C-alpha cells in the first residue's frame, strides 16, 4: 500500500470531510465482488483506490494508488476539497470502526504499526454496550486513526493472546506479524471515559514507531514459517508471479 500520499498532513486534513474506508483485499468474498466492480478492468488487484459520492457511486474508475491519478499529495488534497465542497454533510452517529475479527485486527494493527484496542464481551449485547463506550473517543481529534479496534469473545482472546481476560477493554501492542499481542492496559467493563482516555493515551505512546524494512520483514516471516491464509484466493497477477518465483530471486 502506498503510504507516501496518505500520511501527508494536507491529505489527512482533507480526509476529515470524507468517510475513509480501507477494506482488506481478499479477506471477504462479499467485499471482493464490489471491489472488483470498482476496479473495473479484470480480476481484483491487491490495491484499489477510488473516490465516491455519498451514495457510493465512483467518481472515476478504480486505480491501484492515488499516484496513478494525482501528481502530488497537494493535488490529491485539492481534488478532495473540491469534491467535499459539493456535498452538504450532516452529523452522524459514532460507531466504533471495527475490523471483522481479532485475527484480522491484529494483522492490520501490525501492518500499520499501531496498537489495538480489543473490546471483550461474552455476548453480543455486552460487546455492543462496551463498543459504544469507546466509540466517541475513537473518533475524537486526539485518537482518530491512532488505534485499530476489534470486538471479540473471551474464548477468542484466550486463543490469540494466550491468557484469560474477562469482559472489558484490552489495549495491546501487536507483534511484528500480527499473530498475537502484548497487553499494555486491561480495564474492566465499568471503566470510565477518563480511564479509557488514559489507557488509549498510554498505549499510543508506548513504543517508538520505527519503520521496518519491507524486504527484511518478508524474509524474516518466511524464515519463521509465517503463513497468512487469505479468505479468498489472491488474484493480482503481479502478486501471483511474485509467489511463483522464489523470494528475491535475481
Amino acid at each position, binding site marked *: *500500500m502506498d503510504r507516501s500520499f*496518505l500520511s501527508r*498532513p494536507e*491529505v489527512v*486534513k482533507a*480526509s*476529515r*470531510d*470524507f*468517510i*475513509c*474506508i*480501507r*477494506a*482488506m*483485499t*481478499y479477506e471477504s468474498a462479499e467485499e471482493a465482488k*464490489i471491489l472488483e466492480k*470498482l476496479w473495473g478492468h479484470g480480476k481484483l488487484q*491487491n*490495491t*484499489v*483506490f477510488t*473516490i*465516491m459520492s*455519498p*451514495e457510493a457511486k465512483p*467518481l472515476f474508475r478504480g486505480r491501484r494508488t492515488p499516484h496513478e491519478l494525482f501528481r502530488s499529495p497537494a493535488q490529491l488534497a485539492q481534488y*478532495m476539497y473540491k469534491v467535499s465542497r459539493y456535498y*452538504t*454533510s*450532516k452529523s*452522524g452517529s459514532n*460507531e466504533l*470502526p*471495527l*475490523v*471483522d475479527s481479532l485475527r484480522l485486527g491484529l*494483522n492490520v494493527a*501490525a*501492518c500499520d504499526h499501531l496498537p489495538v484496542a480489543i473490546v471483550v464481551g461474552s455476548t453480543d449485547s455486552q460487546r455492543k454496550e462496551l463498543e459504544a463506550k469507546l466509540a466517541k473517543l475513537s*473518533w475524537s481529534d486526539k485518537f*482518530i486513526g491512532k488505534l*485499530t479496534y476489534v470486538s471479540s469473545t473471551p474464548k477468542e482472546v484466550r486463543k490469540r493472546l494466550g491468557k484469560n481476560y474477562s469482559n472489558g477493554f484490552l489495549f495491546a501492542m*501487536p*507483534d511484528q*506479524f*500480527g*499473530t498475537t499481542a502484548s497487553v499494555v492496559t486491561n480495564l474492566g467493563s465499568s471503566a470510565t471515559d477518563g480511564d479509557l482516555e488514559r489507557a488509549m493515551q498510554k498505549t499510543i*505512546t508506548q513504543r*517508538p514507531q520505527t519503520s521496518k524494512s519491507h524486504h527484511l*520483514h*518478508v524474509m524474516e*516471516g518466511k524464515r519463521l514459517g*509465517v*503463513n*497468512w491464509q487469505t479468505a479468498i484466493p489472491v488474484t493480482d497477477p503481479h*502478486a501471483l508471479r511474485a*509467489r511463483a518465483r522464489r*523470494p528475491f530471486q535475481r
Partner: protein
Amino acid sequence: MLARFIVLISLLMLCASEVKANQEKIGWIPTLKQGFEKAKETNKPIFLLSAAPQCLGISGAW
C-alpha cells in the same frame, strides 16, 4: 559522561515517540458496509482504498 549520554538518548526517544503519537492520521473505517452506511447517513463523499494485509503470505505488512 556515559550516564548523561544514555539519559539524553532516552529523552530524545521519548520525544520522538510523543511526536509520532501526535501526528495526525486518517481515520479509517475497515469495512465497506459500515463505511457506505456512514456515508449515506452523513452525506459525506467516500475515500476508498483497499489493500492486502499480507505480502507473499507474510502478515504484518501491506
